[in-house]
């Protein structure tokens, strides 16, 4: 019973809080609200963990979120859906339910899921604080202690509520819930923003690699969902203060979920905000992201926890030519993954062909994709230069996953750019 309570309290309750931040049809309020609420809850858990009580932190943040929600409510979604969208939403809901049912019988599945992420959830749940061996002891150096801990903070709440560290299914349920909410929010927001422009983002969110990874327990899908939704909200209403706040919270969630989260979010903010006429409003989202990210950064600096994947000496050695660059090899591996039919090769050609024959591309989002791909190229070159001869093996383990984010932005850039520059298909709308 406690495990069931853990699964429900960490998913349904944040949805109830999050939907108060969103104005629109129930399907948008509940889906986008669920993702937003999870970010709010997890940030509370993280801040609480830094202060010595994740549950108290999460509880207080939910109360603050509940109170602030109506004051910061942002308009999202449309009352009328495009033809076919209702069926697609129904299908996504069905798939989500199936994943949630399967999650009840699954432990924390993938290697990195427990190796890097869920072990921190256990450490936080047991100690009630980040001042614990899992985060600070050199014996746990292999868990990448410098990585931001939003996902473990969320999952730690499930461990604490269930009171059992030997059952992993509530964590799997959380991931299935998040994918379902994120997928529904993505389709409805894309449809509202650009009628009919949801097809490529849909092809991305249900791509085999995304669905598979969402059930493996890795942090890539939990990172990309708030990032994509935050990007959408920011792009849809670039001059609305409340939308900037909601987008800021979502992007803060992405920045705090993985090590590469902050630079990926920075690419989004740079392309969507810095390339517009500067206003005070455009400072809101970056400020929220930095404010949310800062406490964890201070914690790592205070305890001398540094990244071992990319560090100043590594970059310096590469720039000085002390270690060989593998840029062309990295680019080849990433390129072959992107265009391999068994991996991303179904989505990317569709995006490129659509962009080419219809001359449709959101330039800002397109540039974001390029920046994010370049970022990974550089990170792999720096990290790969220190891997010795095993670059292929090193990249093979995660190149599929790291491409999820830039390719999601690519799907958005073509899908949404589509209706902005050409006439939309004529259709009979349905409620």
């Amino acid at each position, binding site marked *: 019973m406690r495990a069931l309570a853990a699964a429900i309290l960490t998913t349904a309750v944040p949805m109830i809080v999050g939907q108060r931040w969103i104005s629109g049809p129930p399907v948008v309020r509940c889906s986008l609200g669920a993702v937003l609420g999870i970010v709010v809850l997890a940030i509370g858990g993280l801040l609480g963990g830094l202060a010595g009580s994740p549950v108290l932190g999460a509880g207080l943040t939910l109360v603050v979120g509940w109170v602030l929600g109506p004051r910061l409510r942002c308009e999202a979604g449309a009352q009328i859906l495009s033809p076919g969208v209702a069926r697609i939403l129904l299908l996504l809901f069905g798939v989500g339910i199936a994943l949630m049912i*399967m999650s009840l019988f*699954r*432990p924390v599945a993938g290697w990195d899921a427990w190796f890097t992420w869920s072990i921190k959830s256990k450490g936080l749940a047991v100690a009630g604080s980040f001042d614990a061996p899992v985060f600070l002891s050199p014996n746990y150096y*292999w868990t990448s202690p410098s990585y931001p801990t939003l996902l473990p903070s969320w999952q730690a709440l499930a461990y604490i509520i269930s009171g059992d560290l030997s059952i992993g299914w509530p964590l799997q349920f959380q991931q299935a819930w998040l994918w379902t909410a994120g997928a529904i929010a993505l389709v409805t927001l894309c449809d509202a923003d650009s009628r009919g422009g949801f097809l490529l983002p849909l092809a991305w969110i249900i791509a*085999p690699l995304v669905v598979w990874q969402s059930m493996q327990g890795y942090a890539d899908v939990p990172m990309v969902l708030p990032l994509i939704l935050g990007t959408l909200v920011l792009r849809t209403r670039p001059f609305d203060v409340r939308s900037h706040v909601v987008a800021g919270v979502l992007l803060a969630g992405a920045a705090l979920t993985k090590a590469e989260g902050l630079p990926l979010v920075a690419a989004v903010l740079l392309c969507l905000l810095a390339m517009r006429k500067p206003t005070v409003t455009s400072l809101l989202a970056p400020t929220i992201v930095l404010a949310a990210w800062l406490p964890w950064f201070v914690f790592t600096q205070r305890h001398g926890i540094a990244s071992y994947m990319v560090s100043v000496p590594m970059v310096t050695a590469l720039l000085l030519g002390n270690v060989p660059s593998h840029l062309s090899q990295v680019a080849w591996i990433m390129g072959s993954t992107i265009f391999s039919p068994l991996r991303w090769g179904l989505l990317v050609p*569709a*995006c490129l062909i*659509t962009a080419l*024959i219809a001359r449709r591309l959101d330039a800002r989002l397109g540039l974001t994709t390029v920046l994010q791909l370049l970022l990974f190229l550089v990170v792999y070159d720096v990290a790969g230069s220190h891997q010795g001869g095993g670059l292929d093996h090193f990249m093979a383990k995660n190149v599929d996953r790291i491409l999820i984010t830039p390719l999601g932005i690519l799907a958005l850039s073509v899908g949404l750019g589509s209706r902005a520059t050409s006439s939309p*298909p004529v259709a009979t709308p349905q409620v």
Partner: protein
Amino acid sequence: MERLAPFQSGLVVAGVLGLLVSLIVLRPLFRVRTTQRAWWVEIGAAGTALTLLLPVGVLIFEQTQHFRALQLTDVGSPAFGDPPMSEAAVRATRSALRPGESWATVTRLGPCADIDVYALYWLAFRLVPNPPDCARPDVELYLRLAPPPGAVIIDRGQDYWVVRR
């Protein structure tokens, strides 16, 4: 790909069913009046992804069944592979540890040097909050290697020995 071979027939059936589902779901979009050729490319991309959704669901189901067969409730194992040690070894080590005590694995390669590269990490996940300590462990788990004579063996199984230092 060889890992998928046992599920080939199931995946093909799921693919055919997925195609049917895809056609049903996307049918209203076929009737959209448009001259844009790109519209059909987008429908094709979404349709292909929808078709593949069911085979992916089958694979996740099979993975779940695999975990259930191995009675893994806490942590998974490599894709459709065996975990690095038996549940009995994990239980024995856990019950040997007192709060705050540390532990280490010992294999024929030495302390914390794994036959399976992830065995130490896998066990570390299972044994939180007791930390691994390769230099001065309180408890050692000998995996597929008998402990030296005179060691204080507190539990043993088919391929493991739990030793207190």
